[in-house]
Every structure is written in C-alpha cells, then in structure tokens.
C-alpha cells in the first residue's frame, strides 16, 4: 500500500448511525496502513463527550430510510426502540460500541481531534472529553494536519 496515502475525516453529526461510518472508515484505513485522523465538530462532539458517547441514538423522525410514516417515528419510545435494534445488529457484526471503537481506532494509530470552536460553543473542556482525544484544535490547525489527505465530511 502506498506510504503517502492519508485520510482525514470530519465527523459533524452525533447520532449513532452517523458515528459509525467515520469510525469504520478510519479503522479500515489503519488496518491497511493508511494514515487516518478524525476531527469532531458540532454535533459530532457528542461522539467524544464522556457523558454522551454511550448514549448516542438513532432518530427515526426525518429519516426516510426507516420506511415508516413520520408520525409513527415521533411516537414516544420509537427512538429508543430504533436505537436498541441498531445496537443489537451492530453487535452481531462484531463491531464494538462507540466508546470501545474510539479506543480501538486510537490504539490503531488514528488521531482523534476535537474542534476548538465547537468545544467552546458547547462549554466542553478537555476533561469532559474521552481520554483518547489527542488534542483540541482550531479548524486551521486541523487543515494543516490534513495536508495532502483525502478529506471526508460526515
């Protein structure tokens, strides 16, 4: 595999179904020897926030892939049901829960960075974020880090 190839992923969404694609791609990149970094910003901050990481949800409302009338998706308990169904299916595939996944990609050498502006906006300090986060960076600092990388916005 080419030594120069590099992947930079921006995770901007904090739902369970938006957390996995970035983590899976970053991990796949590392498994094949490609450098990988993830930058978490806006709602993506939930993925690396200590008291949120284990409580990410799949929200049926506004999601046409759920193939159900919108009003049903909005009924009480539907979000929890969709969430627990997805967690079960993910577990069957031997894919770890998000918290453990962060640790795995980090051990695999993937850099994990929190957005400085989003941290300030959400009043999150370093100690509010999971231990695996390497640093809180400004957008320009992350772009410097991502120089020459293939960039993916999720």
């Amino acid at each position, binding site marked *: *595999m080419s*030594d120069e190839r590099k992947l930079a992923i921006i995770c901007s969404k904090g739902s369970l179904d938006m957390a996995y694609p970035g983590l*899976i791609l970053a*991990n*796949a990149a*590392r*498994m*094949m*020897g490609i450098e990988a970094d993830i930058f978490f910003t806006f709602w993506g901050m939930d993925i690396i926030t200590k008291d949120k990481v284990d409580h990410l949800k799949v929200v049926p409302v506004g999601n046409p892939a759920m193939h159900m009338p919108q009003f049903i998706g909005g009924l009480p308990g539907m979000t929890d049901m969709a969430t627990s169904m997805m967690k079960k299916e993910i577990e069957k*595939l*031997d*894919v*770890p829960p998000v918290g453990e996944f962060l640790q*795995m990609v980090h*051990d*695999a*050498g993937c850099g994990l960075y929190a957005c400085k502006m989003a941290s300030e906006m959400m009043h999150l300090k370093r100690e509010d974020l999971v231990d695996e986060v390497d640093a809180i960076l400004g957008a320009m600092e992350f772009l410097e880090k991502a120089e020459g990388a293939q960039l993916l916005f999720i």
Partner: protein
Amino acid sequence: MTTKELNVTLDAEGFMTDPKQWTPEIAEVMAAEEGIAPLGERRWLVINWVRAEAAKTGEFPSLRGISKNSGVETKELYELFPKGPAKKIARCAGYGKPKGCI
C-alpha cells in the same frame, strides 16, 4: 528465498490461495518480504492463533477478533505488523486478502 520460489500458488497480490499448502517456513519467507522477519515469539503467537481460529470457524478472523482473543492487543498488533496488520497477518498465516471491515 522469495515467495515466488516457494512451491505454492499465490494470487496477484502475493496472498496464498490455499491455506492447506502453508508451512512455518512460508510464514518466515512472507515475513521477510513484508519487512518483519524474523517473526519471533509474539508474531508466532498471533499467526498460530489465527490459523487455529480460521481452521475452527472456516473464516479468517477480523482484526478485532484477533486483538480481543489472541492475547495480543491492538496497539501491539500495529507494532508487530506495522503499515497494514490485517494484510501482513493474512499473508504470513497463508490466507487470502482479508475482506472484513473490522
């Protein structure tokens, strides 16, 4: 010795197509080509575990499966098999290119 001189069938990317043809000597030749020779005790632990697991389940294990159950964790796997552990482990263990996502 190079992998081409071994008496085994390889695919275009240098993976063995029949794990039954594997011998420990092949693992060392593959390792040399991958720049990780000699294999040493820890890499052998991984290769032996992977071969036993694949023989048991009929499928090449995921990297996560290896890190969880072989006794060698993720960080060390990446140190032992740098720049693409999944591929290097599969080659040394005599299996085809791993297709799993995890």
